[in-house]
């Protein structure tokens, strides 16, 4: 359904997206994971026709988004990060308007609008103006306007930013319902838990580059069973590195420094809790002082940390 090949977008010397390639199929939620500024929205904008790619290609349902943009966009539904609603039109009129904008008419439109209103849980507030809605209700209507024309590919650009937990859960249900109905969904987020819950496949990007790709299980397996141990305090760089190397030589073969600064050290190793006393001894002997410790079991968040050396939400 969606094919992205060697897609790049430059702003002068700044490379916002650097030769990204991935495919997403019908009935699949494909996640684009990365911190703010990683290039996720730029990719969405290139696919939706809002931006012209500098190089590379993207196609929707076989239609190139540049060469055959009109046909590509007919198959596309976009739920932008920012709300895009007529606040002075009732919810039902918003849905009707965007349905008509994609060519829907008559009974088909009315039936679809009615279904979408039920799906987004606004059936009883359909004739109210969005300006009287809560933030979560507006988000749901924003979602409804993006899917009212039954698109084959839905682009969801960080749809849960600023959404309360109840509305977030409802949004997940709506995304899953669209996926089950056969739509292909490209979902961008910087929340790993969302990606783990929703996405069948993922691409992790940072600084415009794709750094890992696969199913959630495939990506987890890249971590192995290693935990991530984050230590804060004071750590002489050279002495600490020597101390860690010493631990590796004494049998902790999978111990690895992910990142190291004067004030923090991040390590990965399997069954880290069993090795904590030895690690603290080694660091103390090397002149380090630990003031705070954080131990995390393997997940996508720790994978990102492992791959980039930094937190996803930095």
């Amino acid at each position, binding site marked *: 359904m969606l094919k992205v090949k060697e897609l790049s977008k430059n702003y002068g010397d700044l490379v916002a997206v650097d030769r990204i390639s991935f495919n997403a199929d019908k009935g699949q939620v494909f996640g684009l994971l990365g911190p703010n500024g990683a290039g996720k929205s730029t990719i969405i904008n290139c696919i*939706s026709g809002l931006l012209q790619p500098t190089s590379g290609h993207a196609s929707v349902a076989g239609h190139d988004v540049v060469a055959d943009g009109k046909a590509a966009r007919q198959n596309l539904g976009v739920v932008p990060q920012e709300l*895009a609603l007529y606040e*002075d039109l009732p919810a039902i009129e918003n849905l009707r308007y965007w349905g008509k*904008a*994609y060519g829907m008419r008559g009974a088909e439109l009315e039936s679809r609008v009615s279904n979408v209103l039920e799906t987004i849980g606004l059936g009883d507030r359909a004739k109210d103006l969005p300006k009287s809605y809560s933030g979560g209700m507006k988000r749901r209507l924003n979602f409804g306007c993006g899917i009212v024309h039954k698109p084959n590919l839905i682009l969801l650009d960080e749809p849960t930013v600023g959404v309360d937990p109840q509305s977030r859960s409802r949004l997940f249900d709506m995304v899953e319902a669209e996926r089950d109905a056969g739509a292909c969904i490209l979902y961008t987020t910087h929340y790993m838990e969302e990606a783990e819950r929703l996405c069948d496949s993922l691409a992790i990007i940072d600084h415009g580059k794709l750094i890992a790709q696969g199913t959630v299980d495939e990506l987890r397996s890249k971590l192995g069973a290693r935990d991530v141990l984050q230590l804060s305090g004071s750590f002489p760089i050279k002495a600490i590195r020597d101390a860690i190397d010493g631990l590796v030589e004494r049998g902790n073969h999978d111990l690895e420094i992910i990142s190291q600064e004067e004030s923090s050290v991040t390590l990965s190793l399997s069954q880290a809790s069993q090795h904590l006393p030895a690690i603290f001894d080694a660091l103390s002997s090397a002149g380090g002082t630990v003031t705070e410790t954080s131990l995390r079991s393997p997940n996508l968040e720790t994978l990102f940390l492992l791959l980039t050396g930094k937190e996803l939400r930095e």
Partner: protein
Amino acid sequence: MLTSLRKDLARRRQDLLSAFIWIAIPLLIGGLITAMMGNDVKPHGVLLMVDQDESILSELIAGAYTAGELGELISVEKTTIEDGIERVNDGEASALLIIPEGFGAAFLNSEPVTLTLKTNPSQTILPGIITSVTEILLDAGFYAHQLFGDEIETIKNLDDSPADAVVAAMAVDIQNKIESVTPHLFPPIIDIEIVAPPPTEPAPPLALLFLPGIILMAVMFAANGIAGDWWREREQGTLRRLVYAPGQLGAFIAGKALAAAVIIGLVGGLTLVLGFLYHGISWAKLPSSLIWISVSGVGLFAWFAALQMLFSNQRTANVISSMLLFPLLMAGGSFFPLAVLPGWIAVIGRASPNGFVADRLTQEITAAGAWSFALSDWLTVAAAVVTGLSLCAWRLGSGFARA
């Protein structure tokens, strides 16, 4: 296109207050002007006079200002210097004339004498008339001296009860002189061809001339207000969502233009109907006038929109647009009819977009029949609509909608 039209009309229904303001302000201004001017009112001024001489001559001068048709424009009130200066400064009178003591004697003796005329700077027309009349009186005095110098000298030397024979002789002399100069002053007409003048339309009442400007004020308010909707759509994110939809831009713009025509037609139409009712204008001219202001209003809307879309934020766009709106209203005859403005200002006013529309509307409602608009008028307005909407389309396509 119809979807976009219906959407904009539905949205506009949620903001009836704006439409009310677009109509109410021009009607309020128009009502005040009409109340002040009335339908047949002519300007009238007061000339304050301080007569320190109190001679027959000074009385004659006072009478000269109210003689004949001048009396319909000017009335003379006697006063003191202090009161006169204060009332002119307060704008209660058009001018103050001070006739000094000894004026009559000085005139008879051909001695220099000074009349003081202080005019009201806040008025232009009536003080100008009073100044002109004063200059004419002074010229008349000079020529009277040239013609009747001997008689004036005789009158000066007469005692209180001159003999009848002296008076009769002087009267005969004056009559003879008048008869001798009459052929030079009023030469006989050699050949007279009497041609019946074509019947002329009576000049329209001044208050009627205000009507097109008032209507255009409502149209301008509406056009500028609706033009701001592009920015509102951009801020709401709906323009961006529009770009995602396939091939919707042209229909969207056309729908907005149609919605503008409907709203401006309603706003302008209501002011038109009220104006027609008040002034008793023939209803046959209503359709042509309504179509004219609706189509012209779309042109104004398109250009306001194109202008607003050039700026980087909504606030700047609003400020610049409003800064342009009021000078245009001023120049285009919304506060003073173009017909009563000085010539060069009226030329500029008629060249302004709203002035052009108001001028042709004035022509239509004061013409003998309906549909007095020339083809070139319609073509000019059509060109404004097309170029304005094309600019909007260009701006939407060149990044305004995507931002």
